């Protein structure tokens, strides 16, 4: 009987801890939500590629588009120059946040540079995104062309 009463107390304690104040919000938003996700995913599990797309969002999809597009280009050692994330935010008013060169390399195996990177002069392709997140690659033929691109985006911030 006493063990039964202690069981009721421990059940109430669990309910109290997880039902009180912010803990309730957290428990519903996180563990219970993940549980729902588990139930849904266990019916049709996704592969690592699909999981990465879901996890890393639009930026990952754009990076993979760049990778696909670069595979068709006749260049052996491409270095891709990216538009600053500040340009997407302030000029295109879109929520696109392309990764820094290190993360881009992790995703794609391709080398990238930002407008203010130390090795920006090595860039031989320019990656442009429109406001529908469609990717366009432009070859950079000369250092003069590179300087024009850099000057055009000078006022935008490279946001991490």
């Amino acid at each position, binding site marked *: 009987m006493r063990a039964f009463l202690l069981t009721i107390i421990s059940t109430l304690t669990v309910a109290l801890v997880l039902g009180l104040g912010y803990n309730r919000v957290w428990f519903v938003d996180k563990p219970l939500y993940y549980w729902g996700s588990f139930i849904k995913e266990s019916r049709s599990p996704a592969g690592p590629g699909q999981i990465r797309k*879901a996890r890393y969002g639009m930026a990952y999809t754009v990076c993979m588009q760049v990778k696909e597009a670069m595979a068709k280009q006749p260049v052996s050692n491409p270095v891709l120059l990216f538009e600053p994330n500040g340009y997407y935010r302030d000029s295109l008013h879109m929520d696109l946040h392309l990764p820094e060169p290190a993360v881009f390399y*992790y995703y794609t195996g391709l080398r990238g540079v930002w407008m203010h990177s130390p090795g920006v002069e090595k860039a031989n392709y320019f990656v442009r995104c429109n406001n529908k997140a469609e990717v366009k690659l432009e070859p950079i033929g000369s250092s003069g062309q590179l300087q024009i691109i850099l000057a055009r985006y000078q006022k935008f911030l490279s946001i991490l």
Partner: protein
Amino acid sequence: MTLFLLICCHFFSGYGLLDLFNIRQKPLVTLPLALLTGVAVASCVPFLLQLAYCPLYPATVFGALGLSCLLLNIRGLARAYRKWPRIGRNMMPRLRIRVYELPFILILSFLVFVSVWRCYYQPPTSRDALSGPEAIAEYAVREHTLINSFFTTDLSTTNNQFKSPYLTSLQVIYKMAGYPFGQIWLSIIFISYTLLLYQVLKVTLHPILAGLLLLLMTATPEIYAYTFLILYDYSNMVFLFLSLYFLIDSLESRRRSYFYFAALLMGIATYIRSETLVLAALFTPILWIRQHRDGEPIVKMAWTTGIFILPSLLSYYFTISLYNNHYLPVHYDIAALVNPHPFHLRPLFKAYGDIFKELMVSEYGVRLWGYIMFVWAGVFLAELVILRRFTRAARNWLYAIGIVFAGLGLLEFLLPLFELAYAAKRGLFKIIPLMVMYLANSQLLIRLSARISQWEQGRSLGSRSQQG
């Protein structure tokens, strides 16, 4: 099958290490402790292979894991060769679960399950991991070296390539074992730590109170997130806690082997996060106080301090001084990152104020830690006002809390990159298990435990003995 073999390797490596240090605990503590130390041993293997310029193929990595497991157990094997050990009853884990523990066990199992699933199937990966250890591990598996083509890309936006090889090494092992996201080792750490902490709490508290504290600890939103998000802080918290657990035990029991083991665990915590070296140094006064009380000569006090700090110094030397400066193709000038005005102390006090106000007692603090800090503060104040004294163990854990708090402020002051919103916030992980251990050793909760136990056993409260 691969996972099973890896878990066995971790367990036996850890068990061998415990045996070398003569760590004798009950089986339900030995099991998780062996797994935790085994994961720590594994985390050194690819790193040491790299230091020896040995290529990282599955054969070399798993061969070295097996060899390290064998070497750590050589003493036990030699003993077994001389006299085959008889497996006694007390060597087998005795699972005695009371019915009222079930609600806690069920909800904790649910939280563990969800975390393991996220870790295995849908792991969130932080920018800190993607721009450093995770990327290095991914290319290490392809190119068979930790110093790989990742270092040839533009790394001007990150310093994560200079962080400890702990995470990279474990990711290499688990990616080589066939897990595309690696990181299942984090679930092993989470489960082992949870199981170990429950057993430790039950030593002084009634299972209901132990379950309550463990639930409060596990349900801290920020820490729970890091049970399936690979970074350094969760592992650092676990190994720092283990080090202090054995250090405080060694102060009470005067077992030298526990003291050496605590020093080793502090070294592991420093290997995981190099800033822990500062905390290791700040914990030495507790040794001096004890030795001064015991009338030990200064030479012996210095020797003990040296022994305690040595593994941490070695960890720092191998991971930062040697590896970063002499192996990596890019270098990191840590001296340039240190606050150039160390005697201008106002920012130090501001750092303490910010940590306390913004991260601990604010609404944001509740979203990070739940209510555990308020529970701790309530019990602490009640003991301070009502009982006006603390048990020796509680005093030691209070000291540990104070040192971690002081250390975090100091680190934020000395290293401007140790930002409040990131590094200091995650640094506070380390305080939570210490608060839980203080609660487990507080007279109020020990007395309450005794009352519950007596009531449960049917004895009248009036005839209770003066426990606690």
